[in-house]
């Protein structure tokens, strides 16, 4: 491909500029979090870990991190089980009605969270699920389903339907076919979906703003309050921790994809 068509120098420069625009704000929080000052700024005389110490020594922050983690785990479980089974069913039946069902499963990506949030605010009040772990886990689980449906459907598109027929033809029941043939083949897609569903819940704020207040106080909720009330470098430390955590999950996903493609 020596003579491949390549973009000209101006376009290349512009592309670099866009990439910098995308990445700089994310990286700028790192030096800010290491500042030795008490206000948001770049480090003046020395690098300092004091703001990390503040965050990691604060029971409020730790409690929020723990709550967010538990909610993300529970909601990921809901999204993965429901989303995977649904994607498999739609794939196998593959007709007009299942296309509609698949479109229904994508609604949480299309409809703005604010609309869902005000809906839940009223709905959960009647069910006594406001400010409850179960309520937030359910809401995040349901809105996490699309991510799983998308990744699992993508994995299934590469799955030879004759393998399913072969298994059935040899006498395997539906559950045996699922456990021994389909699930092992699409496991990488399921893991990808799980990672995205987890990140979705871990970062979700709008719904939480409406259906949780005191007992359930997730990490994004605490960051929100922090941004609105006291902009201090501890916020930057939290931001860095979040970025690192998300990056690790993304790298995990990339590594799994590499292994699958190899």
């Amino acid at each position: 491909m020596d003579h491949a068509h390549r973009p000209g120098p101006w376009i290349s420069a512009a592309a670099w500029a866009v990439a910098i625009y995308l990445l700089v704000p994310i990286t700028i929080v790192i030096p800010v979090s290491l500042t030795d000052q008490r206000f948001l700024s770049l480090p003046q005389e020395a690098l300092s870990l004091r703001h990390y110490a503040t965050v990691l020594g604060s029971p409020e922050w730790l409690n929020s991190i723990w709550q967010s983690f538990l909610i993300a785990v529970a909601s990921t479980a809901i999204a993965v089980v429901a989303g995977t089974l649904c994607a498999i069913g739609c794939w196998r039946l593959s007709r007009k009605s299942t296309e509609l069902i698949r479109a229904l499963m994508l609604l949480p990506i299309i409809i703005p969270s604010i609309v869902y949030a005000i809906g839940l605010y009223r709905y959960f009040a009647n069910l006594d699920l406001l400010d409850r772990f179960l309520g937030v886990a359910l809401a995040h689980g349901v809105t996490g389903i699309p991510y799983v449906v998308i990744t699992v459907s993508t994995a299934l598109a590469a799955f030879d339907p004759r393998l399913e027929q072969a298994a059935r033809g040899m006498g395997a029941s539906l559950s045996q076919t699922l456990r021994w043939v389909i699930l092992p083949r699409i496991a990488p897609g399921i893991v990808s979906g799980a990672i995205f569903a987890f990140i979705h819940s871990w970062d979700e704020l709008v719904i939480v703003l409406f259906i949780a207040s005191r007992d359930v106080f997730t990490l994004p909720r605490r960051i929100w309050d922090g941004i609105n009330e006291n902009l201090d470098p501890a916020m930057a430390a939290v931001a860095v921790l979040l970025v690192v955590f998300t990056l690790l999950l993304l790298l995990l996903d990339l590594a799994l994809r590499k292994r699958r493609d190899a």
Partner: protein
Amino acid sequence: MRRQDAGWWLLILPAFLLMTAFYVAPIAQVLAISFTEPSPGLGNYERLFTSESVQRVILTTLRICVITTSLALLLGYILAYKIALASEAARQWWILAVLVPLWISVLVRAFAWVTLLRRQGLVNNALMEAGVISEPLQLVWNEFGIIVGMVHYMVPYAVLPLLASMREIDPRLLAAARGLGASRLTIFGRVFLPLSMPGLIAAGVLVFIFSLGFYITPAILGGGKTLMVAEWIGLQILDLIRWGLGTMMATVLVVAILATLAIFSRVVDLRRVFGSGA
């Protein structure tokens, strides 16, 4: 429906029930309120034509969304073009540069922009120290700040569908055009751009509908002064307890988004738009 298919339908059932009971039902119920509170009828929708503040919010939202979409498409197109024509090894890194911001918390990104753009922020400080300006610029808590933050959020969503459609363009076509003596500009204008048009439309639709209902970035970077519909809805319901008005606007928002999708589903394969999101 064949009896043998019953088992497969059973697999769909849990997700269908969850989605109906805990997603569709709450939304349908709350949207219905727009016709019943404070009094039954279309009273809330009359405000669309009579209330100046309602109209202002809608116009502000549309203006910001159109600007955001245009800028995100422009920047996204440049990036996708570079990625599509990059070598295999370089492409991996460029794609990573798009995927990482996509998955970083929107809160973290809004916070980072505040750090950079506020009055005593890094940008103003740097410019003052360099002597370019004497007074800090008003870069955030206005429409400018909202657009900077929103475009930043939307560029990755523009790149993915654009890239998907650009990757389908046979590179031999470009080589052939060059072999026939076409200049770089002609190749782009006559071959590349028309062939990437489906991706451009898909990206435009995606970014526009995401922008319409955006909450967090405008709320943080707008500083409460510039209101977009999502924040306005939240305000009506949480602070002013005006359910009728809030749900009316939510209904309008949902209808606008679904209508946009319906119109463009004839032009682009929407499954591809959302299929490439992950």
